[in-house]
């Protein structure tokens, strides 16, 4: 007989292991990693004490890769191999990217996502982002002295499906299990809301290096409900730099600069912009490689003038988000400012004017997203405590639909639907004897398919021949809590079923990812088999722990036979874990999952019954 464990009062009966999890803000300009330590979210610093990692990756001729400050230093001298703001290319084709003509890269416009030719070969934005994530993962593992169970990675709320999938793929490449993709403004709202015990309707105005988001949230008794979100996935601080860069070129009377000189001037433009947030004017002194010199001064007013249209551009999404939420500007209780670009005084002024109140700038706009992500990661990893009884209800930013006759969009899931969500739509055949049907999945608000983003195309084959209009093809959309879509199609009337799963055409194929993973692992000198074995052992341990915990809590829901069967599966899995065969462990995990299938369903049912039973009397009777 097992010995009974006695816990100290107030402690979990199960000797609770703190699982290491991090929140990562994968930014256009800078990236951060944060974790919850002793109940407090903190950003993790590198060995020199800096927490912000510039999102810059340099591929060197000798095969090594620099990430962060070291790469920044080479921006001007090795521009072609030093990639900045890679986030702008995630899930995008070359034609979608603004200002390519002033970028010093050697682009390869393959179908789907754009790629860059470097001294180390052709790199996809996913691989480049993975280098940033890998650097942060190593920093976290060194700092926390252990292996991470996973990470919450933030994405702009207005990122579409292709951009989200690309971000998730980058994490997979970096060896980071993704606990959740979290929208940046939502992460900020969590950090702000929990710190300030905020209640009511808040707007989050998030202007990052390359993206703009505006989310409206309702905070009530620990629930963070996103009412609506809007934005511009290609508008950010970079555009203010670019505007100033163009102004400098215009004023300085110099020959068209080389790629390297252009990079120098862009860096100078950014410095001047940052200086103008605290000073009335900023000098622009640059000695160019060409021998020319730039000697200018830009004032705060001049800068505000030349970028006024960009500030105005952010107000469109603000209006739309408010309208979708059914609210007027004065119904918003507070406006949380996020992203380094919101330090610009003329942005704060425009926001104050629009909402009729001073925006909330009492938190660090660079760190708040990473801190919120860390809080969410801590809860998702299973470290939830009683005081962490909060919940996020987020939405999908852009409508999802299918192309119908005449190049029109039929919306299947409307924007601002709370996640997760599933919807199905029925279609029928157009011709007699038609045995196949082509589907085109799109995302966006516009009526014409050509104005929306194409996500995927697929065909359903094997429809039994029938007269036109007799077949019933049901197309199902499911969007999960990460905001990622899967689509399946099925012919219903004949009983013949066929279904297909979709991967975005702007993403990488599974084969490509497998190939990159393999070469990445070889590069790092890891042993694939050892890694696979360790991963399965960790997974098995996790599943066993969760199952035992479930039996301890809800064992009453099991018959003696069922309980014995589950315990037998656990014993088997334990035995397999001692071996060296990762596939056998995997099948042991699957066997245990099958054995607990019914039990899990019963537990879910009972928790739902309890959810309402406990509250009916005091809360629902009004």
């Amino acid at each position, binding site marked *: 007989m097992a010995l009974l464990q006695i816990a100290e009062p107030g402690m979990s009966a199960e000797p609770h292991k703190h699982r290491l999890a991090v929140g990562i803000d994968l930014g256009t300009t800078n990236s951060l990693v944060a974790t919850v330590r002793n109940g407090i979210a903190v950003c993790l610093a590198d060995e020199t004490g800096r927490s912000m990692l510039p999102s810059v990756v340099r591929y060197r001729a000798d095969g090594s890769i620099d990430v962060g400050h070291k790469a920044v230093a080479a921006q001007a001298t090795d521009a072609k191999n030093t990639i900045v703001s890679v986030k702008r290319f995630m899930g995008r084709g070359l034609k979608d990217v603004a200002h390519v003509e002033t970028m010093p890269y050697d682009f390869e416009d393959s179908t789907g996502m754009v790629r860059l030719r470097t001294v180390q070969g052709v790199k996809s934005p996913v691989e480049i982002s993975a280098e940033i994530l890998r650097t942060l993962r190593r920093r976290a593992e060194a700092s926390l002295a252990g292996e991470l169970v996973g990470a919450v990675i933030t994405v702009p709320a207005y990122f579409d499906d292709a951009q989200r999938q690309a971000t998730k793929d980058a994490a997979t490449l970096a060896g980071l299990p993704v606990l959740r993709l979290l929208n940046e403004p939502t992460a900020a709202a969590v950090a702000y809301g929990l710190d300030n015990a905020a209640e009511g309707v808040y707007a989050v105005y998030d202007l990052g290096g390359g993206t703009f988001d505006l989310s409206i949230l309702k905070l009530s008794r620990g629930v963070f409900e996103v009412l609506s979100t809007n934005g511009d996935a290609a508008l950010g601080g970079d555009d203010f730099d670019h505007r100033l860069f163009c102004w400098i070129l215009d004023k300085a009377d110099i020959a068209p600069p080389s790629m390297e000189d252009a990079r120098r001037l862009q860096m100078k433009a950014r410095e001047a912009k940052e200086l103008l947030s605290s000073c009335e004017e900023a000098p622009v002194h640059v000695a160019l490689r060409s021998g020319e010199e730039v000697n200018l001064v830009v004032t705060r007013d001049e800068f505000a003038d030349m970028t006024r249209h960009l500030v105005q551009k952010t107000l469109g999404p603000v209006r739309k988000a408010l309208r979708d939420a059914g609210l007027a500007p004065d119904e918003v209780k507070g406006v949380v400012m996020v992203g380094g670009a919101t330090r610009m005084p003329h942005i704060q002024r425009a926001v104050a004017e629009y909402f009729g109140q001073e925006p909330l700038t009492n938190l660090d706009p660079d760190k708040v997203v990473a801190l919120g992500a860390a809080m969410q990661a801590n809860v998702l990893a299973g470290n939830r405590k009683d005081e962490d009884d909060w919940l996020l209800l987020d939405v999908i930013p852009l409508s999802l639909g299918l192309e119908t006759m005449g190049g029109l969009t039929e919306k299947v899931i409307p924007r601002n639907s709370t996640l997760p969500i*599933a919807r199905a739509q029925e279609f029928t055949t157009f011709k007699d004897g038609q045995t196949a049907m082509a589907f085109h999945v799109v995302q966006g608000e516009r009526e014409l398919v050509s104005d929306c983003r194409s996500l995927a195309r697929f065909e359903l084959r094997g429809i039994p021949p029938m007269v036109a209009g007799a077949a019933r093809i049901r197309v199902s959309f499911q969007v999960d809590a990460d905001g990622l879509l899967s689509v399946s199609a099925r012919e219903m009337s004949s009983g013949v079923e066929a279904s297909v799963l979709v991967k975005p055409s702007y993403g990488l194929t599974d084969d490509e990812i497998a190939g990159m993973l393999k070469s990445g692992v070889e590069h790092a000198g890891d042993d694939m088999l050892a890694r696979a074995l360790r991963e399965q052992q960790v997974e098995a341990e996790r599943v066993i722990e*969760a199952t035992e915990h479930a039996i301890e809590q809800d064992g009453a829901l099991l018959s003696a036979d069922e309980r014995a069967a589950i315990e037998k599966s656990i014993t088997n899995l334990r035995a397999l874990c001692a071996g060296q065969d990762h596939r056998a462990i995997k099948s042991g995990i699957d066997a245990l999952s099958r054995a607990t299938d019914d039990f899990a369903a019963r537990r879910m049912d009972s928790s739902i019954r309890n959810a*309402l039973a406990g509250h009916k009397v005091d809360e629902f009777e*009004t």
Partner: protein
Amino acid sequence: MSIDLTQDYFTLFGLPRQFALDESALEAAWHELQSQVHPDRYAHLPDVDKRLSMQWATRVNEGFRTLKKPLERAQYLLELAGVDTALETNTVMSPEFLMEQMEWREAVEEAREAGEVEELEQLHHRLQLHAREVRGGLARQLDEAHDYAAAADTVRRLMFIDKLQHEIDEALLALEE
């Protein structure tokens, strides 16, 4: 095995099966249910729990949306009562109603072509008042008279109004771009 499909949304949310709705009770129940089934609560558990959680959370969100929107709530009540609203095929509406609809539609079209934002907003507002009136009638038909045939007819009217409102929204959005 997994999802109890016999349980209707009203039962799931602990609300009376009727058209009149206590919105704050619906919302409180939605939050309570999601705090039990949301995928964020199951992220650290085995795949079987994650799958169940996603199915349940999806169903709870679908139920919330269905009960929250008056038109969908009415359609759902009729469906539960076994009334076939035959929404796609049965479009026999009274000539007066159709005339009225045509007039609304023409007004919207004219305002849209002339780019009159204020006129569109006016129309939207008037339509909203009209919809409220129609919904009042629907509540009496469903909750008091239990006259489902009449209610089905009103539901069809509301669908026209809903579609028109949506078109005004789209027109306003397009004018803003």
